[in-house]
């Protein structure tokens, strides 16, 4: 008997309708769980890099370089000035790791996304799950980084912990757009290496990280204005040591980063739907 008398629905149809429900609701989370398991295989790297990098940077720049930076910037020591910026760029580093090669891998090199899309998961959920998992990993890195900043005594403001949120916003803003771009690549013939060299590196140098953006001539400052890192850095400084900027500018930072997240995320979802349904 394959008929369900009470509803007139076939039993296999009824079974399918019931079975799809959980995946429709929780699919993105299942993808995130998968990603966590993959990340577990490089936990060592995440933790060592998560503690080692901040240590090296805070020490070399905040303590070492600071000895030859004679003027205090924004009325705080160079260490306090540079610490929130280093925190923000750590999030960018995580984004440029997690939203490039793992995406190429999933679509092409080891097409796990194709495997996922044969299950009840929808392409949009695959994208969402990846964003969720990277956001979690990024938060772990940022919390570790912030703890070390505290150890260095470089976060005087009582709301300094909010710089973690600033870093997360910046990392996800850059990462979402980067994920969209990587998703469009059918093949990597060096594009990703170019992104690292000619986008990530210059962005780090020209986003007011090591010295204020105002140091540059006005015709170079636009790099900072479009750079998610500049916005997250400035935001982190506001939280970290009460850097004085007009309130509207603070709102602009948050709004700009939020827009990039939404646009990049939606772009990535669109491409996933296109690439995984052929």
């Amino acid at each position, binding site marked *: 008997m394959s008929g369900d008398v009470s509803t007139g629905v076939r039993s*296999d149809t009824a079974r399918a309708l019931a079975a799809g429900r959980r995946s429709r609701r929780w699919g993105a989370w299942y993808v995130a769980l998968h990603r966590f398991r993959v990340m577990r295989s490089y936990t060592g790297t995440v933790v060592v890099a998560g503690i080692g990098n901040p240590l090296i940077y805070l020490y070399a720049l905040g303590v070492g370089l600071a000895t030859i930076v004679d003027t205090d910037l924004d009325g705080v020591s160079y260490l306090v000035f540079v610490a929130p910026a280093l925190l923000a760029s750590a999030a960018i580093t995580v984004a440029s790791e997690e939203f490039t090669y793992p995406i190429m891998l999933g679509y092409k090199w080891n097409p796990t996304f194709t495997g996922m899309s044969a299950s009840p998961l929808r392409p949009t959920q695959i994208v969402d799950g990846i964003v969720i998992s990277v956001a979690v990993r990024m938060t772990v890195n940022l919390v570790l980084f912030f703890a070390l900043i505290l150890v260095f005594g470089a976060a005087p403001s009582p709301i300094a912990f909010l710089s973690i949120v600033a870093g997360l916003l910046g990392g996800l803003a850059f990462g979402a757009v980067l994920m969209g771009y990587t998703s469009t690549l059918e093949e990597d013939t060096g594009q990703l290496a170019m992104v690292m060299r000619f986008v990530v590196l210059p962005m780090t140098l020209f986003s007011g990280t090591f010295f204020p953006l105002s140091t540059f001539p006005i015709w170079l400052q636009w790099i900072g204005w479009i750079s998610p890192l500049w916005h997250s850095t400035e935001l982190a400084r506001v939280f970290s040591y009460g850097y004085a900027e007009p309130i509207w500018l603070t709102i602009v930072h948050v709004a700009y980063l939020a827009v990039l997240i939404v646009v990049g995320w939606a772009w990535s979802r669109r491409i996933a739907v296109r690439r995984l349904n052929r």
Partner: protein
Amino acid sequence: MPAPVIVARNLVKRYGDFAAVDGISFEVAPGESFGLLGPNGAGKSTTMRMVGAVSTRTSGDLEVVGLDPDVHGPEIRSQLGVVPQSDNLDTELRVRENLLVYGRYFGLPSRLVATRADELLAFAQLADKGKAKVDSLSGGMKRRLTIARALINDPRVLLLDEPTTGLDPQARHILWDRLFRLKEQGTTLLLTTHYMDEAEQLCDRLVVVDNGAIMAEGTPAELIRRYSSREVLEVRFGSDRNSEVAERLTGIGDRMEVLPDRILVYSDNGESELVRITEAGLHPLTSLVRRSSLEDVFLRLTGRSLIE
């Protein structure tokens, strides 16, 4: 009669001007093992992807477990097990982990998934490989792991796209044995293949597909009866002489196919045709009498061999 699990009517998939699938219709009953047989590029994989609810059809009707893939993709996929043409196991995870994460995609509780993972590893003869890296497995083992993964949700239908392509004969036989067991347990199988022996071993019923359209439909035995003779005599006269000799063989057998390397003579009695050829004063370098196979059906229907 229970309702069919898969119903396709005039299924079409176009990419620009090119119709990869051009009006295919078929039905698959519960528990049936149904094959799409055809050469590479015939539209088999595209059909499979549409049935698997990962490729939107251009036109036609399609129902899988009574649902439309355009509307109920996730629901349909929850009832399918998919073995794709090329393995897409996660090589960053271990063997057993591949089953664990995949089972979760179906919303199944982790404890149930863990139990099933162990059962399926045993079924796939990989019980001692659970902690191994995927890349350390042989091609045959990877295929079996992919099949195990496809079974993690206890699917109503198993879709197998060229399941044994690229495997050595021994690995193929192990895989066939596993698939045969599933068939005996009543799992509905939909498979594509360009191997005749595979189709004959595994399919209750099949369609021959070429250029995106169905050329013939039936059980392997029916198709052979309808489109071929009982026996086939294969004679070789050397590649430069085959076509020349063929002209002198008129009247021998029901029908003849001249291939570059041999001549196929279709007849109900191959031995007696061979006697007639030798009596005519022609002496083939080698000769072989065999039963007709689906390869002959395909040759008859399309004028081409399946594997070129």
